[in-house]
C-alpha cells in the first residue's frame, strides 16, 4: 500500500531564480526505507518539506498517509503523521532540558499533562536514552542530540519519519548512532525517508531516488543506482568506496569476470567477493 504518492510536483521559492522542484513523481510504500540522494541544493529537502506540509504544493498532486496535501489539508494533522528530524541538532531544540523538549510536540497536540511523562520516557527508551530525562540538551553529544530530537518525533508516533540530512553535522560516531536508530525504526516496520548526500548511507535503503537540479533522475534498489558511476557522476557523486575498488580491480583484470556481476556496495560484500574470487583462482 502506498503511503506517499506524489505526481509531477513542481515548486519555485518566492525569490527563486529557478525551479526548486521540476515535475517530481514518487511513490513510497508503507514500511519502505527510501534514500533521497543528491548534492546540496538539488531539491531533496524541498520535496521532504512538501510531505510534511511545511511548504504548500504549487503544482502536481501529493497524497500522504491518505491525506490529500494539495487540497485544503489540515497541515496540523498532516504533521502528526509525518515526523521530521533536521540537520542541525542545535537549531531544533525548543527547550534546554531533554524531557521538556521531547514533550514539546505532545503539548502542541494537546496531549493530557498526565500522559506526557509516560510517552516521553517511552520515546527516550526507544532511542536508548533512558535516564537522560533531566539532562541538559547542550551537554549531549551530537549523536545524542539527534537521538533526543528523534525521541521528540517518536513521542508523536507518526506513520512516516523524514531525516533531513540528520547525520550531516555529526562525527563518525554520532552518524553511526543515528543510522543505527534509523535502521532499528525500519526494522520495526516504520516508513523512512532519509535525505542524504552520503552514498554510503543510501546503501542501507530499500530504494534510492537520485535527484539533480530539482528532478528525480533515477530510482531503484541501491545496487542498481549506486553502481552506475556515470549516472552518479552527473550529480557530482561517486559510487560507494567498495564499489569503486571493485570496479578498479575489474578494470585492471585482477578479479575474474562474475556472471552475476553484483557490484559490492559495502565493505563486507567487497571482502566476501574478494575471498570468493581468490578461492576461485
Amino acid at each position: 500500500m502506498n503511503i506517499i504518492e506524489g505526481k509531477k510536483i513542481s515548486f519555485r521559492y518566492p525569490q527563486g531564480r529557478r525551479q526548486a522542484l521540476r515535475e517530481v513523481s514518487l511513490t513510497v510504500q508503507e514500511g519502505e526505507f527510501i534514500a533521497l540522494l543528491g548534492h546540496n541544493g538539488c531539491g531533496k529537502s524541498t520535496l521532504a518539506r512538501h510531505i510534511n506540509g511545511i511548504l504548500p504544493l504549487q503544482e502536481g498532486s501529493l497524497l500522504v498517509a491518505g491525506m490529500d496535501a494539495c487540497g485544503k489539508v489540515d497541515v496540523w494533522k498532516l504533521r502528526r503523521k509525518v515526523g521530521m528530524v533536521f540537520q542541525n541538532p542545535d537549531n531544533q531544540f525548543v527547550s534546554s532540558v531533554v524531557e521538556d523538549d521531547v514533550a514539546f510536540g505532545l503539548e502542541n497536540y494537546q496531549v493530557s499533562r498526565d500522559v506526557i511523562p509516560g510517552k516521553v520516557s517511552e520515546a527516550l527508551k526507544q532511542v536508548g536514552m533512558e535516564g537522560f530525562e533531566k539532562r541538559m540538551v547542550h551537554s549531549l553529544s551530537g549523536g545524542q542530540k539527534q537521538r533526543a530530537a528523534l525521541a521528540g518525533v517518536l513521542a508523536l508516533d507518526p506513520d512516516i519519519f523524514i531525516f533531513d540530512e540528520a547525520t550531516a553535522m555529526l562525527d563518525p560516531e554520532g552518524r553511526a548512532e543515528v543510522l543505527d536508530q534509523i535502521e532499528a525504526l525500519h526494522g520495526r516496520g516504520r516508513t523512512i525517508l532519509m535525505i542524504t548526500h552520503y552514498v554510503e548511507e543510501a546503501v542501507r535503503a530499500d530504494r534510492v531516488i537520485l535527484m539533480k537540479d530539482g528532478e528525480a533522475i533515477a530510482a531503484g534498489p541501491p545496487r542498481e543506482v549506486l553502481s552506475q558511476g556515470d549516472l552518479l557522476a552527473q550529480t557530482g557523486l561517486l559510487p560507494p568506496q567498495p564499489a569503486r575498488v571493485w570496479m578498479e580491480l575489474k578494470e585492471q583484470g585482477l578479479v575474474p569476470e562474475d556472471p552475476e556481476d553484483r557490484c559490492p556496495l559495502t565493505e563486507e560484500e567487497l571482502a566476501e567477493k574478494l575471498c570468493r574470487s581468490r578461492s576461485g583462482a
Partner: protein
Amino acid sequence: MRGGIGGITGRYIPGDTLLHRLDERAKLFGFLILIAAVIMTDGLWGYLLMAVFLLLLGFVSGLPVREAYGSVWRLMSFYVIVFLMNALFFTSQDPLWHWGIFTLSREGMIQGANVVFRIAIVIVLSNMLMLTTSAVGIMTALEALVRPLKYLHLPAEEIAMILSIALQFIPTLLEESDTIRKAQIARGARFESRKLHEKAMAMIPMIVPIFLAAFRRADELSVAMEARGYRGAKNRTAKKAKGMTGSSWAALLVCAAICAAEVLI
C-alpha cells in the same frame, strides 16, 4: 561557553536545592521585587545588606561559586567605562579636577560606583535565576507574568514563548560570537588592542555574521517547531507550575523585606 562574556546569562544547572524547588512564578516575581530593591539601594549599609543577601542566595542555590558570581568579573571593562562616563561627565558645583569637557567630582564618582554596583548585583541575580530555573520554568513564569496582557487582546502566550526562546538562545549566540571572534583573530583582527577605537572597529566585521547566524537559527528553529505541530502557544497543553508552597511564599516575603529594608536604610 565559560570564557568571555558567556556567563552573563548562564544556562540552567539542574539541582534539588531550595532555590531549584521554588515555584518559578515566585522566583520571577521575587526577582522583579529585588530589581526594585537594587534601584533603591544606596550607601554602604544598603550595599552591605545586598551583599550578605547575595552570599546567602548563592549558598541556598548550591551553585559553584564560579557559576554563581563569576559572571560579574567578566564585564570589568564595561564597569570601567560606565564608571568613567559617570565620574567624568557629572555636572558638579565642586569639581576636584577639570580639563576640557571632563569634570571629575566626588558626586560623579559616587554616582559611577552606584551604577556599577547596581549593574553587578542585577547580573548576579539574573544569573542565579537562569541557573536554577529551566527554560520551561521560565516560560511558565513569564506566562503568568504577561497573562494580564490578554485583557488588552495581546498574544500573552506567544510573548512568553518568544521571551523564553530568546533567553535560551542567548548562550548559544554568545558561543557562536566567540567562534566568529576566534575566526576573525585567526585572520588578523585585533580584539586585544587596548585602544578603544581599534577594539570598536574590530567588532564591526563580527556584527554581520552574528546577525546572519541569529536569523538562520531563528529560521531553522521555526521550521522545526512547525514540523512538530506548533501552531501558536495558546493551542497547547497548559504548563503546570510547581505550585506555591510555603517556602515559595516565604521567599517572596524575604524579597519584599529586603526591598523594604533598602527603602528604609
